[in-house]
């Protein structure tokens, strides 16, 4: 163990990989020193485990109907109660964690490449390419995200795939700006000039030299955004535009519980609390990451 730590914390890393691992290690330590971020990390770790072991953890299948025991209040048998079709809400919340994670992961892997591509090209080429791309970015930033996502889903039709497309289409602009800013500081540097003198094509410079250096910033920024993506996905689900029934998506579950709100409060509140908890955890991590990345804003 101590050998690993020594390898990680050495002042003279032997390879790029070692340097990167060391930086990650120190960043993680700094993050864990922040109690709120540590709580967030624990919650997200639990969420990952729950999603992974959903079939083992859930006491009932998520779509097993039992009309004899519909709308039962929370009890030892059904800790979160049952819904209008007698389905166990705890089991559905557990299975729903998979959907939430899938939406966030898919949106994230769509958003980051779009933002990177637009930002790096704009920053590297400069001139009119830059101006046009940044103007497009500004236009997308001039919309409230949820409203644009709603309009897009309205045109595409409801469904979980379209919800992910809508989230990705509305989330990329800040990443493009960030990647552009990074690229602008990099493109005049000597190693880029050296690469060009060696005859590297623009494509090669973009992909092999600029991309790896901007990726980490983009990934860090992504952690700040995950909670927002969860909320937009849940909002779309609540409006009936995201995952369709009987899929146990948390937002959609809250929507079905609306009907029974005053008499069977648990149907709507339990899945909603899950959204809240997970989004809070991601925000706590994001806040911690911000502190680690920007020491000036420590605790601000």
């Amino acid at each position, binding site marked *: 163990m101590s050998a690993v730590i020594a390898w990680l914390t050495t002042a003279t890393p032997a390879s790029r990989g070692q340097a990167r691992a060391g930086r990650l290690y120190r960043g993680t330590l700094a993050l864990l020193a922040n109690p*709120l971020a540590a709580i967030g990390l624990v919650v997200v770790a639990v969420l990952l485990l729950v999603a992974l072991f959903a079939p083992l953890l859930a006491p009932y299948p998520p779509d097993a109907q039992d009309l004899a025991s519909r709308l039962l209040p929370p009890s030892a048998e059904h800790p979160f109660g049952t819904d209008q079709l007698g389905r166990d809400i705890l089991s559905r919340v557990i299975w729903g964690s998979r959907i939430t994670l899938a939406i966030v992961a898919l949106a994230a892997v769509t958003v980051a490449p779009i933002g990177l591509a637009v930002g790096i090209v704009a920053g590297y080429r400069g001139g009119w390419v830059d101006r046009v791309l940044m103007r497009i970015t*500004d236009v997308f930033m*001039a919309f409230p995200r*949820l*409203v644009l996502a709603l309009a897009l889903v309205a045109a595409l039709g409801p469904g979980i795939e379209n919800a992910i497309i809508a989230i990705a289409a509305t989330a990329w602009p800040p990443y493009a700006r960030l990647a552009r800013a990074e690229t602008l500081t990099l493109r005049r540097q000597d190693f880029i000039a050296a690469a060009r003198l060696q005859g590297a094509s623009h494509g090669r410079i973009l992909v092999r030299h600029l991309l790896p250096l901007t990726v980490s910033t983009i990934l860090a920024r992504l952690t700040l955004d995950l909670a927002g993506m969860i909320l937009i996905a*849940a909002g779309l689900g609540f409006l009936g535009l995201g995952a369709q029934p009987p899929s146990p998506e948390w937002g959609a579950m*809250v929507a079905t519980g609306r009907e029974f709100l005053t008499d069977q409060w648990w149907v709507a*509140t339990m899945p909603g609390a899950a959204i809240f908890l997970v989004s809070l955890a991601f*925000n706590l991590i994001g806040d911690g990451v911000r502190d680690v990345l920007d020491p000036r804003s420590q605790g601000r």
Partner: protein
Amino acid sequence: MAVAQQSDGPIGSPAEEARAHSALLRLSSRALSLILSVVLTVFGLLVVTFFIGRVVPVDPLLAVVGDRASEHVRAQAALELGLDLPLWQQFLRYLGDTLQGDFGNSVLSGQPVLDDIARFFPATLELATAATLIGVLLGVPLGVLAATRHGRWQDQLIRVVALAGYSVPVFWLGLVGLLVFYAELGWVAGPGRIDVIYEYSIEPVTGLMLVDTLLAGDHAAFVDAFWHLVLPASVLGYLSLAYITRMTRSLMLAELGQEYVIAARVKGLSERRVIWRHVLGNIMVPLITTVALSYAYLLEGAVLTETVFAWPGLGLYITQSLFSADLTAVLGATIVIGLVFIGLNLLSDLLYTLVDPRAR
């Protein structure tokens, strides 16, 4: 013009005139670039809504006439929309119509979308304004408190409260609020803007229920409207509070380390005076920008809040139109919200220039 009056030279002197002149030039070139950027952004907004309305759907006609339209109606609508024309000509026509205020007709109501929006908008305005008031009145003091108790438990607590406001699904918070404060405790009124008994006796003059009931001189209706507004405004206000608290806190923290704060303290000014007069005075400009932006973000929260509270505003209009597949109405409302968003951004930009002499 305010520029000329605020300069320190004697008014009317040549030096003063020259300075005012160059300041005006700078201001007008700034104004020009602002106007240009607004025009381009609005153009982009319309490109996006055109794209969503005409290119994304498989059958754009379906969204315009609904699924029960006869062949004849469909052909008529296709001709009106110019669907037989090349895409760029369609866009020019769309641009012309929209800029003249013709957003098309709603499938659901059969009315021009813009008329619908005019009817629904005041409710959103009332809700968002009330929410912003709550956000400012609570958020600024909380942010100040957190900054002055930096690192202590008050700070940590306020940080978590604000972060929770960022994290809570607003539709769920609304439902829990209804459950606790309406169904269980009975402290506030339920969904809607006003009780049915007053619904038709109040003349919609401004569309703002609180103002209209006052104009009608109906005290009971005013009180009723107020208790209807409290809960949705508080729910939405929490989002605004979260944003304003965080911004106030970090602006205050940046400012508290400045030397003039030490100087003011050394002079023996009371801590209260240092904080509320000197420091808060200095962060006023970015704070105003923050409030303007938070107002814009409330439009987003309003969509979900209005759905939960059956609040007949723009958000409810959008979701109702969504369910009847009324794309024209959805896009019309999207344009209006986008314009308000652009307008508020512009306003905060202008305020910045007007209030902060360094930005000129």
